[in-house]
């Protein structure tokens, strides 16, 4: 009976871990996607300080969230994001808005990939 109780507790733990993992990933990536979209749009305002500011915000948010996110998602994805966010800051500092926008698209694509990978769908399951 003890084993069965332990098994039921473990099942509950597994359910909790999966649900919280999914919710955390969704919440974090959604926020970062919104910030990235904001950064993309800010690139249209030439000579503005906004792109620099938003890219630093993205970096801060990412550094804060990645501590937990790396325990959920594959590390290749987080490594890619690290690289792209550093690039984004660089292009923001150098006012290279074309590459800044390209990097925004790349960041968004990785974030969408992370979020969609946690979603329960036939494609993901199969």
């Amino acid at each position, binding site marked *: 009976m003890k*084993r*069965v109780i332990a*098994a039921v507790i*473990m099942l509950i*733990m*597994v359910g909790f871990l999966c649900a919280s993992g999914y919710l955390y990933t969704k919440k974090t990536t959604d926020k970062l996607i919104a910030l990235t979209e904001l950064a993309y749009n800010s690139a249209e305002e030439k000579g503005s300080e906004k792109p620099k500011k938003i890219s630093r915000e993205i970096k801060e948010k990412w550094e804060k969230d990645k501590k937990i996110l790396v*325990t959920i998602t*594959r590390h290749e994805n987080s490594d890619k994001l690290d690289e792209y966010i550093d690039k984004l800051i660089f292009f923001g500092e150098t006012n290279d808005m074309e590459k800044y926008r390209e990097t925004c698209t790349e960041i968004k694509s990785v974030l969408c990939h992370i979020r969609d990978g946690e979603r329960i769908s036939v494609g993901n399951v199969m």
Partner: protein
Amino acid sequence: MSVTLIRAAVLYIFVIFMIKLMGKRQIGEMQPAELVITILISEIVTVPMQDNSTPLIHSVIAVMLLVSLEIILSALSMKFMKLRTIVEGNPIIVIRNGKIEQKELQRLRMTMDDLLEALRQKDVFDINDVNYAIVETNGTMSVLLKAEKQPLTAESAKIKLNDKGLPCAVIIDGKIIKESYGDCGMTDEKLMKTVKESELKLKDILLMVTDGKGESTVIRKDKKP
């Protein structure tokens, strides 16, 4: 490198705990489902042990789920006969009243060589000696010999034997095993008396076994050269 070391250690402790939770069974005694789960666990754990880019939690969740399902399924199959039949199957009689059930052998995809080999592993070298042979759900074979071929027992020879009870090791490698006391009615006083009678020091005793009648066998350690 050190990350791999820590990950491997964490997974090792985790797997040991999970296997313990599943319960003790020898590989040969496992039901097919249990064997599959055991192999799956080792496979799942291998991936994050080798690849540091895979989060540990992925394999931890998978292993926890498999072990939980296995325990719950085996608990349910203990309660429900039908489920047990579905999960574990039924024992199959391959020799009935000394006659080989060829249809059952075909169903099991068992050749005559396999049958003879399984019988030999049961120390049966002549198939004519067998009354019943049953392939159990875990794949092992149980054999019932014909009455005239069954080994002589004290009961069939009408000999009365004294039951000495369960022999238990009360000293191993100079250390007293108090957990064994209950099985053979041993006490500290009796133990010390036996040790004194053996004219050995406790640290010089390799093994001391006591049966239910209180008879003890003491084996001393070899002296170091």
